[in-house]
């Protein structure tokens, strides 16, 4: 813009007007008009394009501007006298966490003043911290929404945090107390952990910080394989100048960063957007250092645990295996013994059955033989007894039959004797029967007789001779 004004000035150099006022006259006129017309204090909204704070005098000469995007609608110089500035800035810092600074849009109470030597200026007597605060909050809210909408908010958080966060790209300044605290802790940790760090110097606050940090982030990105993480470290700067960390450009750069970004900005106010999107925000550099140390501790413990676990599990496993072998031994022993016992009992049982059954069998046979003997004895006796009976009976029959035979014969003989006795002739003659003889021979028919034959008759006592006188034939 300045360049443009200068060129315009040189273009108009050839035309010289006839009438003109002295500058002082114009200035005096302006001064009186302004004193008259702008006697009051006004609340005015403008952007501080440059604060122009002069530390020696303590006065500020801010360049104010109003823009519509890139187009400047108005610009004006302002003055904050030393006494006002300290009051205003202290209040401002106290309320907003930032000092009045370049590029800040503010609502201020001022009186328009014109000085012939210094020109127009707005004498600022008060600045509304609330306005800036509201503005900042709004901006931050919008930026936050944008980050979320664009899916950036969680992006860095989603980057896997390295298991071993050992190589750190530090964005800080060599003069930062936070930085020194940080490296002091990590370089001198009592456990002997070794960190590698490299400082990428950058502005850490104010508007310049955004670009400065982004630039370093890009540097780091180009050699990201050398690093596990980025640490943005600020410290000792109080809460002033932190608004850069709410800046969209920086926040999105951080969110988009391919390796984890850890913030250790160190403040006591609200979390900035950078801190929000950062992978992790321990807030202070010291905490960050301790966080890393803790990570290492955890790793060391993890390794220790693994070692112990391997030892323990190996021992367990070996113990278990040993027990299994013992079990095998025990089972083999007991089962074998029980097999032995079972088999021994079985053999014993076989032995007993053989004995018992054999003896039983022999006993049975013995009984059978005894029964034979018994039967033989009984039946032999019977047989032997039957014999004499039969013989005796035959003997008796013999006796009887002989006796009866002899008797019968005696009877027969007696009968004959009797019969013959009866037939003796003397016995017939005695009964009166007589025997007639002819020629000395007994006759029993007339056949050989004729009348006149002499017959002799034998009687029981004496004989008679007689003549046949008549024969009567039968």
């Amino acid at each position: 813009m300045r360049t443009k004004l200068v060129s315009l000035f040189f273009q108009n150099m050839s035309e010289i007007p006839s009438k003109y006022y002295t500058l002082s006259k114009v200035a005096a006129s302006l001064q009186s008009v302004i004193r008259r017309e702008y006697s009051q204090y006004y609340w005015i909204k403008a952007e501080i394009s440059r604060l122009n704070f002069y530390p020696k005098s303590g006065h500020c000469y801010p360049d104010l501007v109003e823009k519509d995007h890139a187009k400047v609608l108005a610009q004006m110089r302002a003055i904050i006298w030393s006494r006002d500035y300290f009051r205003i800035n202290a209040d401002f810092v106290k309320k907003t966490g930032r000092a009045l600074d370049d590029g800040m849009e503010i609502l201020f109470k001022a009186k328009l003043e014109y000085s012939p030597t210094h020109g127009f200026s707005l004498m600022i007597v008060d600045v509304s911290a609330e306005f800036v605060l509201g503005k900042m909050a709004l901006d931050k809210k919008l930026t936050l929404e944008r980050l979320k909408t664009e899916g950036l908010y969680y992006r860095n958080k989603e980057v896997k945090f390295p298991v071993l966060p050992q190589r750190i790209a530090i964005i800080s300044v060599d003069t930062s107390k936070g930085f020194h605290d940080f490296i002091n802790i990590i370089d001198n940790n009592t456990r002997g952990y070794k960190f590698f760090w490299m400082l990428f110097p950058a502005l850490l606050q104010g508007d310049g910080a955004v670009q400065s940090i982004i630039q370093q982030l890009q540097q780091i990105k180009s050699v990201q394989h050398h690093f596990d993480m980025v640490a943005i470290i600020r410290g000792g700067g109080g809460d002033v100048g932190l608004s850069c960390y709410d800046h969209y450009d920086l926040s999105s750069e951080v969110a988009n960063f391919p390796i984890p970004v850890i913030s250790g900005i160190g403040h006591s106010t609200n979390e900035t957007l950078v801190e929000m999107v950062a992978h992790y925000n321990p807030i202070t550099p010291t905490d960050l250092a301790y966080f890393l140390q803790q990570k290492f501790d955890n790793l060391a413990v993890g390794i220790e645990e693994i070692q112990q676990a391997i030892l323990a599990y190996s021992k367990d496993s070996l113990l278990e295996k040993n027990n299994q072998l013992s079990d095998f031994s025990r089972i083999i022993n007991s089962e074998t013994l029980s097999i032995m016992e079972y088999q021994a009992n079985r053999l014993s049982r076989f032995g007993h059955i053989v004995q018992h059954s054999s003896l039983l069998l022999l006993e049975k046979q013995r009984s059978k033989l005894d029964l034979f003997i018994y039967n033989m004895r009984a039946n032999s006796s019977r047989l032997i007894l039957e014999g004499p009976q039969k013989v005796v009976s035959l003997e008796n029959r013999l006796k009887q039959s002989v006796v009866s035979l002899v008797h019968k014969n005696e009877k027969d003989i007696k009968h004959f004797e009797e019969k013959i006795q009866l037939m003796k002739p003397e016995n017939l003659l005695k009964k009166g029967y007589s025997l007639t003889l002819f020629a000395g021979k007994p006759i029993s028919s007339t056949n050989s007789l004729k009348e006149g034959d002499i017959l002799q008759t034998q009687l029981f006592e004496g004989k008679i001779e007689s003549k046949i006188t008549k024969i009567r034939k039968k």
Partner: protein
Amino acid sequence: MSKEKLNYESAVAELEQIVKDIEYGEISVDDLSEKIKRSAVLIKFCKQKLKSTEEDVAEILKDMSEDK
């Protein structure tokens, strides 16, 4: 007639014949006496035979009893 030839059976048979002869009168008086004499001899023989047999049996049976 000699005794030697005699036995109980034939003696009894002869006796039976004699009795039969006499009974049926086929015999002469002369013979009759003869026959009767013969009968007496035969009967005597038979009786003696029976007696001796009886004695024998008694004797034997007596022996048997004693053997018992």
